[in-house]
Structure formats: structure tokens, C-alpha cells
């Protein structure tokens, strides 16, 4: 069952007269109890997508399209209704745990306030629930009266997980949850997250630039490039037979595959190339690619790709 449906999402920033198209026609669905990976290079607009769902974009932004959750279009909701959804229905963890926790509040308080605010429980009750949450993410609840700077990066990320899951939301948006962690810690945090998410029937949107991170935990993966999606497929399929040349190159650039960088740079979001946005860097480009903008087409079951190399399979799309 589809839990959240994004339809033709367009997020345009006005940056000193230039229009930056951070998200340009994104269609994406988050299914119940799935882990959906959103992969892309830095600056492709993937974090913006996460913030757009939460309604946390700055005010100088133009948003178009629809984000449907439980029959409501989140983009049209008033701020008061949106506050009820944030945290309670859709939780979010930000990129950097060192800057995402408030330095002058104890970690216990940063979890407990969520219960007091959303569930209206008393101080003691909220504290008890916060302690349980810390236990759940593998931390000593005795440390709840300590401040963020007294914890290591991995510990802080555990606290972030505890905050994100405190109210048992239906969806957790995790934006680069492993940034700044060493590889053994990465694995621990990812295992902890995917374990908790599965046991609590939560869906997760895992935003990352790191295919290795997405590989182990995701059910499906969506690949984003210059503000639009280029490929969506079940994780195993996308990793074993990538369809889009960009996805193929991305896999080739992994250290394990020989660390082959993709030539060129990601295009600017204010003036993306005409036609297919990836064509200037593409190995397989033809004349058509610079002239026409390809549509997202379904080519196999649950597999969509935005590339002229593939033909629409009407029966599956």
C-alpha cells in the first residue's frame, strides 16, 4: 500500500534573480514498511525533497505539485496541522548529528519534550519514555542528563534516531544518517535503524550519496540527478542490472568496482542542460538526447527509467 505519494513536485528557489530548480517534476511513492533509498550526488536536490515533505523549506521558495499523505495534500495544509504531522506521522533525522542537537539542552530533554508536546504527558512520564527510547537505541539511560558535546558522533546519531522514532511515526526521513561516521560505526547505525524500522513497521526514506549505504538496507532505490529522478527500481535489481547510464556509472565509481569517476560535473540547477540533463556526461548519448527531454517510463515490473535507450513497456508501466 502506498503511504505517501509525491506527484510532479517542483521546488524552485529564487536566488538573486536566478531560478534554481532544486526539484523539477519529481514523482515518487513511499510504500508501507519499505526502506526507499534516494541516491544522488551532492547538490542534486535530494535533501530538498526530504524537507519539502516535512514542510520545512524557507519562505522564498515556490512549490508546485502534490504530496499526498493519508488523503491530504501536505503542501496545502496549514502550519498548525503540519505541526501535528511532523514528528508524530513523519519523523526526520538531519545530516550532521553534531549540529543537529541543541548544545544547551540535555539529550534526555530533547527527546522528552516531544512526548510532553505531542502527547501532553507529565514531566516524569515524558522522562521515563525518553529513557526507554535511549535504551532502545542502545544507550545508557543514566546519561540522559548529559549534554550533546559529551557524546561521540555515533552516540549523537543514536540520540537522533531516538528523537526521530520517539512518537513512532509512519515514515522516517533520514538525511545522510551516516555522514561523519567511520565505516564500522556506519554499519552499526544502519543496522540499528533498519532493525528498529522493521520491528516498528515504519517506512523510511533514506537520503544518501553513498550507494554502499543504500545497498544493505534499502528495498527500493530512486536515483536523482539535477533535480529529477532518472531511475527507480527494486534495490537488488538496480544494483545488479542498472538501466540508466548514470546509475551504471555511479556503480562503477564505487571503490569496490575500481573507483572510476564520472567525467564532468553535475550541472547547475539554475540552468540545466537542454534535453536529457545527464547527456553532456553520458557515454551513450545520441543527437536526440540534447534536443528532447526524456520521460520517465516503466520498462519492467517496478522499474522506471528516464532514458531514450529504453522503450516503454505498456503492459508493465
Amino acid at each position, binding site marked *: 500500500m502506498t503511504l505517501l505519494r509525491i506527484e510532479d513536485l517542483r521546488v524552485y528557489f529564487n536566488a538573486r534573480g536566478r531560478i534554481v530548480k532544486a526539484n523539477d517534476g519529481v514523482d515518487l511513492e513511499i510504500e508501507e514498511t519499505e526502506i526507499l533509498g534516494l541516491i544522488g550526488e551532492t547538490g542534486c536536490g535530494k535533501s530538498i525533497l526530504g*524537507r519539502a515533505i*516535512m514542510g*520545512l523549506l524557507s519562505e522564498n521558495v515556490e512549490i508546485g505539485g502534490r504530496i499526498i499523505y493519508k488523503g491530504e495534500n501536505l503542501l496545502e495544509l496549514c502550519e498548525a496541522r503540519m*505541526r*501535528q*504531522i*511532523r*514528528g*508524530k506521522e513523519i*519523523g*526526520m533525522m*538531519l*545530516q*550532521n548529528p553534531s*549540529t*543537529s*542537537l*541543541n*548544545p*544547551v*539542552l540535555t539529550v534526555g530533554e530533547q527527546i522528552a*519534550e*516531544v512526548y510532553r*508536546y*505531542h502527547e501532553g504527558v507529565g514531566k516524569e512520564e515524558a522522562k521515563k519514555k525518553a529513557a526507554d527510547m535511549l535504551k532502545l537505541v542502545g544507550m545508557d539511560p543514566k546519561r540522559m542528563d548529559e*549534554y550533546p*558535546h*559529551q557524546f561521540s558522533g555515533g552516540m549523537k546519531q543514536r540520540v*537522533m534516531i531516538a*528523537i526521530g522514532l520517539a512518537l513512532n511515526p509512519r515514515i522516517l526521513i533520514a538525511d545522510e544518517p551516516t555522514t561523519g561516521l567511520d565505516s564500522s560505526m556506519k554499519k552499526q547505525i544502519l543496522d540499528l535503524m533498519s532493525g528498529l524500522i522493521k520491528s516498528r513497521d515504519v517506512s523510511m526514506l533514506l537520503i544518501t550519496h553513498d550507494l554502499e549505504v543504500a545497498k544493505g538496507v534499502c528495498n527500493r532505490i530512486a536515483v536523482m540527478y539535477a533535480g529529477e529522478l532518472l531511475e527507480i527500481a527494486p534495490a537488488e535489481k538496480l544494483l545488479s542490472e542498472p538501466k540508466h547510464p548514470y546509475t551504471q556509472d555511479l556503480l562503477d565509481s564505487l571503490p569496490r568496482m575500481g573507483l572510476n569517476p564520472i567525467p564532468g560535473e553535475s550541472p547547475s540547477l539554475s540552468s540545466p542542460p537542454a534535453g536529457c540533463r545527464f547527456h553532456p556526461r553520458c557515454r551513450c548519448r545520441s543527437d536526440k538526447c540534447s534536443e528532447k527531454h526524456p520521460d520517465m517510463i516503466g520498462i519492467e515490473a517496478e522499474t522506471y527509467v528516464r532514458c531514450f535507450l529504453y522503450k516503454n513497456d505498456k503492459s508493465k508501466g
Partner: protein
Amino acid sequence: MLKYILKRLLLVFVVVLGVTVVTFSAMHLAPGDPAEMIAVARYGEDLTQEEIEWVRATEGLDAPVYIQYLGWLEHVLRLDLGKSLITYEDVLGEILTRIPATLVLAISSLILSLLIALPAGIISAIRKNTIVDNACMTGALLGVSMPNFWLGLLLIWLFALSLGLLPSFGYGSIKHLILPTITLGPSMSAITTRPTRSSMLDVLNQDYIVTAKAKGLDERTILLKHALKNAMLPVITFVGLQLGFLLGGAVIVETIFAWPGIGRLLVDSIYARDFALIQGCVLFIAVIFALANLAVDVLYAYLDPRIRYEKK
């Protein structure tokens, strides 16, 4: 926390010791012969060389400077700041009688200034680049640019002379307090509004504010609980300096309104060339400044746990 305060206190002691050196040398660095100055202050211009030498000997001014300093320091450490050269009153006693007036004015104007500056700074930050923001910032600019002596005189003219509502000078009642407070408070708030705004703006862009929003908290909780405590850290430095300045006696305002505080005492003693009194006042003001800074440090540690647990 206690260890932290003790460490700071030790530092204050060192600073005050430095101040005593400077204060003491000022007398000897000032142009002219200190013995002659004292003699003139006491007995008038018409002096013979013998009389000056007599003063030099009785005041101990013929000893080497460092001996003089140590002797003076010994007295200072015993809280003996000497006697006024003119009235022979005890300098410390003189200063102590002036403290209540200065304290009252300092507290009332600081409270008024914070009551204006904090809301104005915070609202400007939240409503950045709106009419409200521009109005607050223009007000702050006006406040900073308006000299105290001018504003004070204007207020006297309007409220005391034209309208006859308030006394133009003196001390003793709430009515007397109003004009000096309105002169000092708003102009100090003008100084604090700007750092409050920029600090608040900076904090509102931090990731932890986004985290707070993502929790679904309302704007009030986010502002007052998550942002304000962080935003106040840089502002406290300004407020601490202002407090030091006020407790040392707002010299100009105290003079305009004939307010019997430390600042007024300092100005009077300078006019009278009462060197012992000047020295006592300067030393007292310096100590107050150092203590105000200590208070800032302690407040910092209270607000920011990262400082509190430093090298624990």
C-alpha cells in the same frame, strides 16, 4: 562549577593588581610634581619651595617609587584608600555613600534597556527585512547616534521645564529616577538590539532549529526554548560590559542630572584635583568592571554546558 568560579576569581585578582599599578603610576606619570599638586590642592597657589618639600616628606613622596607603591598597596589591601586631600574624609567611606545612587540608576536603566533590546532584537530577527525589522534597526541607529548629554538636556527641557512634570535634577524619589533612566536605558538598548538580532538570526539558521521544527514543536517553543538560550550567549558579553559601565557610574548622565553617584564623585574630584579621591574612584570602577566580567563568565557557564564541563 565552583572550581571554575574560583579560577575566574583568581584571574580577577590578577587584573585588579594590574589596575593598582596603573592607577598608582598615573599619579607619577601625570605632568607636574605630585607633592606640589597636593600642596596646591590643600593650601592654594601661593607656596614656597620649603612648604612643598614639607608636603613631600610628610606624604612619603621622597621614597623610591616602588616603596611608595608597596606602602600604598598595603593600605589598599587593608581597604584603606586614604583620605581626601581637601575634606580629609575617608575615601572609601565617601565612595560607599555614593554606591546606592549608582546602583539604583544602573539597575533601572539596565532593566529598561533589556526590556527594549531583547524583544526588538528577537522580533527583528524573526521578521527579517520587514517594516518591523527596519523600524527597529532605524530606532537602534538613532539611539546609538544620539549623545547622552544631548538627549538628557532635551528631556529636561521637555519634561521639567516645559511640562513641569518631573524634577530636572536630584535624587531621592521615583520621580527623580525617571529622566536619568530614560536617558540611559534606550540608548544602551540601541547597542544591544543589533547583536541580539544578528545572534538570533545566526541561531535560527542552525540545524538544531530544523530538528526542533521537525519534531513538530510550535514557533513559541522553538524560539524561547531552543533558540533564545543559544542566542543570548554573545549578547551577555555586551550586557556585562554595560553593567560594568553603569556600576562604575554613568559619568555624563550623573553629572547632567546631579545624581549623587560614583560618576559624579569622580567628576567632582577631578575638578577639585583631589588626587586621593580620583585614585580611589578609578580603582573602585576598575574592580567593579572586573567583577562584572566575572559575572558574565559565570552566567556564560550557566547557560552553556560546553564551558561548564571544560577539562572536567
